[in-house]
């Protein structure tokens, strides 16, 4: 008997509707020394699956001071094979230890019989895939005892067998499992550009009431053999203006949402990353209703 979860429950113990950043140990001393004003931090739980040492020491210090999101990259929820029970157990232990406000994963697969491929690989959007992913999400939520968020991927190829739209797929997944959604605006821009559809139309259809967190990141610009644009989700530079504009469109429609800036390689100095979060926070604040002058229903 699966847990009775609704997508709203996925958002219940949620992150503050502020900006945060991905935590890097290179920055942590400065963050703690400066008492940085940050809405929350996010980490990949896979980097904290050792027994002890500096990763746990610093994450404990961060958790004592800030809300936390665990954002998994190893669960391989879209893999045709069974979920990795040992990995779920490690996740459960981390969730128990750190009590994060949010746990999320990706609509992707990353493992096969041959081993862990360490990339978020694309899925055909079909009823077969939907049934599989929904069963996996339900199993994860049951084993972890909590609802999770699922993130829209950035993709470089699509599948001729796909017969569902990605937004419909995610909405149906949430309806079947009670999971919430993590909306990565950079991924929307990357995928839309790579596959030639409108990111605005995608976002305007996205079920924003199910979104528990928004991601922003930088991407690299390349071209395929035919010269068509090929954007690559690199997380190694600042968020682009086009993605900021799409983000403003999301926040204008949804109101303030927990928003994370991801920067995972070619790490900048802390003030550069903090400034990216500040830019998101400014957009969130512009949309915040003043705490005085409560609106009167007409």
């Amino acid at each position, binding site marked *: 008997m699966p847990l009775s979860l609704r997508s709203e429950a996925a958002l219940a113990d949620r992150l503050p509707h502020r900006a945060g950043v991905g935590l890097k140990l290179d920055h942590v001393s400065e963050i703690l020394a400066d008492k940085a004003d940050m809405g929350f931090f996010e980490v990949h739980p896979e980097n904290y699956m050792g027994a002890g040492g500096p990763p746990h*020491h610093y994450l404990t210090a961060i958790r004592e001071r800030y809300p936390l999101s665990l954002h998994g990259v190893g669960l391989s929820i879209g893999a045709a094979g069974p979920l990795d029970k040992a990995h779920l157990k490690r996740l459960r232990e981390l969730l128990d230890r750190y009590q994060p406000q949010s746990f999320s994963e990706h609509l992707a697969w990353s493992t096969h019989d041959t081993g*862990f491929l360490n990339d978020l690989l694309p899925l055909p959007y079909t009823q*077969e895939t939907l049934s599989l992913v929904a069963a996996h999400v339900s199993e994860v939520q049951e084993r972890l005892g909590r609802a999770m968020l699922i993130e829209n991927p950035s993709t470089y190829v699509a*599948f001729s067998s796909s017969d569902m739209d990605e937004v419909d797929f995610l909405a149906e997944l949430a309806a079947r499992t009670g999971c919430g959604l993590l909306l990565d605006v950079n991924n929307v821009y990357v995928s839309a550009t790579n596959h030639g559809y409108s990111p605005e139309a995608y976002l305007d259809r996205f079920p924003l009431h199910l979104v528990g967190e928004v991601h922003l990141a930088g991407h690299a610009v390349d071209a*395929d053999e*035919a010269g068509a644009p090929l954007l690559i989700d690199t997380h190694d530079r600042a968020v682009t203006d086009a993605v900021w504009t799409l983000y403003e469109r999301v926040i204008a429609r949804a109101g303030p949402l927990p928003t994370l800036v991801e920067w995972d390689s070619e790490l900048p100095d802390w003030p550069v990353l903090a400034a990216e979060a500040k830019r998101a926070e400014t957009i969130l604040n512009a949309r915040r209703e003043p705490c005085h002058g409560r609106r009167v229903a007409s």
Partner: protein
Amino acid sequence: MAAASLPELQARFAAALIDPDLPPPAGLASATGRARPDEKRFAVYRNNVVVSLSRALRDAYPALRSILGDAFFADMAGVYVRRHPPRRPMLIDYGAELPQFLENFEPARPHPYLPDVARLERARLEAYHAADAPFLAPADIAALAPESLAGLSLRPHPAARLLASRFPIVTVWMMNSGLAEPAPVDFSSAETALVTRPGLNVELRRLRPGGHAFLSALFAGKSLGAAAARAAAEPNFDLAANLADALGAGAFLPLEKIASTLRPS
């Protein structure tokens, strides 16, 4: 042709990611419907797999990369990641087979010390992630009655690792980690090492004569007296100096921790 089932599709996709001689799997679609549009798009995934796993190796073996240079290291990593992809969906302990791999990696044969340098870096990584625990301080030993020392058994701290090499691995590692000035190295001089992490920082020490035999015996559960007797067979073994070094490095669990683990529950 019917579309492949998801297990079939993922099997072909995964195989083509690892083997660059295989074509991208059938069934990839392109927005523009061009012929063979997907080689470069599929190559993004191929590249992500190899580059991200190679980066994990590079982070785990920094001195090795410094010795080999970026190009050689990248070539070696490219071979390694295809032959030894991670078995678990996490990278903090990726690369355990690299020392053994280097033993048999033809281009590395002219440098037979490389596998032992890799073992040293592996020991440092294990120490970094090892369980946190207090350690036995020199004063704790000094407080004991001298006649009780010979029969005393000590237990290794969870982060403590011993290494022995027929090459000067500590010297080579330090020169390639910015901790010692580059200088001519006598590759015929053997070195042994102790890796510990008494607090947040991993520490590395070159052991004195007999130190490896002495600490190996202690870590295996021999009493202080028995371990000293074994090490005394080696020339120039200095019991007091070796014990002081190991205690200073935080190599052992505290006595009360040992007593509590030995106490019947």
